[in-house]
């Protein structure tokens, strides 16, 4: 029974027998899609006197907005920070694979690299819509090089930079070669000259994230006042919470956040980067700001062997991963908190235990987050969809099942195990 075509001739699909995530709960409602967007069926009925062309039976499953990953360094052997013949093809390859994890939009992330890498890679990674070819690219996340030496983590020291005296984004334009297609920059706000950078980036519509930093709470709050709105992987690569100076972590409960604005924070909920108790503390302190990220590295999805991460080489052996150097360290990995044999932790060798990205997938993170925090299924799903969309200022279009939003969807059972992924209402992956 087709619509009468008074507004559009495009076919209308009605997802029936499903529970949709809407208004922060799972509601027993049908979902209507036309032209890749979610349709208001009441308007369709009364204004157009139309109805669905076809109905898709979801078998009682949960239908939620597709996941949005704002920190993804690579996967399946592709490292976005390693220049290759065709960086665009590498991004496209990963974009296709992550559909299996329910990710329908993402920000390819580049770790600290020399300008030559940025100049080569950035022009090739363009913002583009998702589809059968893969998840949509929302823009690049540039994590570094304007970060703190003490908190560089796995980033290569020799390529770290400071802002210099001129102020404004010129040093960034120099290093990156341009800010087109850039949706987020992670920087350390304690670096001299950061205020004007944060302010100008924010004005340009680039999300500014604080991370890999030794900033104290005042410095962090000042950066938020200039426009910063995100914290890159909370707890990791920053000063630990201290009761007399909470540092960046204190932003979660700061009373100096400008009115009408919110601070979001990334959490790598893989069971390794953050102790579940710490995850719970953050979640309980500021549940609306929690954004699940994978921070997945190129080893995600790979079998055992040697692989490159940025300017480094790592090695995966069975369930362990090391830096491949002159001496292959074989010390057992301390604090092995693997909860799923497919989630591996990548460690620096030579006795240090610096984490550097995960190989968890987004759907694993969502399940682990729900399990560790005890939050509801809607809350867990929103942390991977609504919150990242709000962070990037695109929640009117993505991360939600409100009328008019893009029909990027994931179908899953009650344990949040994925059954299918849709982009613009079209099935792009099925289990």
């Amino acid at each position, binding site marked *: *029974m087709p619509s*009468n075509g008074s507004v559009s001739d495009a076919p209308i699909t009605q997802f029936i027998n499903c529970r949709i995530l809407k208004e922060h709960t799972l509601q027993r409602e*049908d979902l209507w899609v036309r032209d890749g967007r979610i349709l208001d*069926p*009441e*308007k*369709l*009925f*009364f204004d*157009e*006197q*139309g*109805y669905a062309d076809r109905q898709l039976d979801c078998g009682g499953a949960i239908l939620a907005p597709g996941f949005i990953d704002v920190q993804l360094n690579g996967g399946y052997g592709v490292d976005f920070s390693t220049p290759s013949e065709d960086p665009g093809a590498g991004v496209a390859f990963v974009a296709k694979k992550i559909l299996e994890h329910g990710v329908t939009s993402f920000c390819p992330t580049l770790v600290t690299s020399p300008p030559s890498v940025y100049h080569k890679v950035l022009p090739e990674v363009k913002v583009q819509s998702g589809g059968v070819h893969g998840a949509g690219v929302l823009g690049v996340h540039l994590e570094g090089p304007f970060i703190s030496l003490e908190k560089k983590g796995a980033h290569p020291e020799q390529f770290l930079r400071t802002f210099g005296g001129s102020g404004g984004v010129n040093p960034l334009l120099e290093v990156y070669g341009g800010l087109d297609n850039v949706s987020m920059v992670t920087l350390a706000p304690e670096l001299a000259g950061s205020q004007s950078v944060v302010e100008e980036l924010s004005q340009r519509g680039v999300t500014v994230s604080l991370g890999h930093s030794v900033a104290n709470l005042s410095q962090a709050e000042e950066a938020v006042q200039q426009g910063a709105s995100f914290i890159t992987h909370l707890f990791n690569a920053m000063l630990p919470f201290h009761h007399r100076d909470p540092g960046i972590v204190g932003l979660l409960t700061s009373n100096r956040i400008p009115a009408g604005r919110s601070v979001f924070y990334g959490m790598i909920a893989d069971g390794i980067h953050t102790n579940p108790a710490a995850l719970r503390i953050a979640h309980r302190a500021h549940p609306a700001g929690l954004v699940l990220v994978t921070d997945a590295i190129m080893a995600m999805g790979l079998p055992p062997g040697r692989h490159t991460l940025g300017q480094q080489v790592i090695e995966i052996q069975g369930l362990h991963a090391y830096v491949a150097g002159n001496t292959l360290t074989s010390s057992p990995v301390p604090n092995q908190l693997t909860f799923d044999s497919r989630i591996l932790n990548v460690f620096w060798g030579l006795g240090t235990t610096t984490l550097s990205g995960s190989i968890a997938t987004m759907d694993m993170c969502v399940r682990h987050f729900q399990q560790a925090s005890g939050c509801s299924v809607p809350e867990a799903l929103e942390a991977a969809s609504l919150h990242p969309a709000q962070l990037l200022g695109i929640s009117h279009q993505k991360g939600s099942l409100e009328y008019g939003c893009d029909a990027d969807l994931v179908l899953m059972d009650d344990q949040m195990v994925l059954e299918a992924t849709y982009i613009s209402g079209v099935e792009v992956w099925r289990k």
Partner: protein
Amino acid sequence: MRLVILEDYDLASEWAAKYIRNRIITFRPTAQRYFTLGLPTGSTPYACYKKLIEYHKSGDLSFKYVKTFNMDEYVGLPRAHPESYHSYMWNNFFKHVDIDPANAHILDGNAQDLEAECAVFEKDIADAGGIDLFVGGIGPDGHIAFNEPGSSLVSRTRVKTLAKDTIVANARFFGHDLSKVPTMALTVGVGTVMDSREVMIVITGAHKAFALYKAIEDGVNHMWTVSAFQQHPRTIFVCDEDATLELRVKTVKYFKVTHTAHLYSTLPHFPQKNIFLKAI
């Protein structure tokens, strides 16, 4: 008139729904010959709609060849407002059944020319061949649709100003804020409903008891507009025990006896099945 008394709200709603279902099924509507149904809104018919949806989902009842005409709609309330009667009908009925949207008629309270809108509605009813069964409720002040006390008993579809009683009764849907309740509505007239071939009024709850008494035991009076149906050849009043509290014992006893005798008229006509579905 028939007065059908069921024990409680749920049973009364089920009886009414079965009656509607059976009427449609025995009519055997087709693309050439639609069944026309007049429909109410409000808390009274809520359970009745749920039952109709149940019969539809079980495969017993299709609305494919049914045309519906709602009784009323607020003036000036945005159609998408959760308390508009469009929203009510969509959420509680239309979205769950297979009715063709072109056959679901509801007055548009936001029309540019309200009088023209009413005239078109009357014409649409006439074009559809009149109403086969008009289902309605009753207000605490005895009104049918929004035909408030003092409405002409031969009135047609028109704009009405709501009585204080009605506004107060409806305030619960607007956060108990009297100022938020619309003050005007478009409504079918008493005459419009009287023109139907059959009328079924559902009345439940003790707060409606006095209105029911006025409607059927007192005279025909424009202050209690439902009383007009005393002069309709085929009217059924379906109520629960609480709604009969103001009636005379004699009235209630009479209709309880006659109802038992008419029990089988509510049974669905399934010649291939040997099952009799009891109304109570």
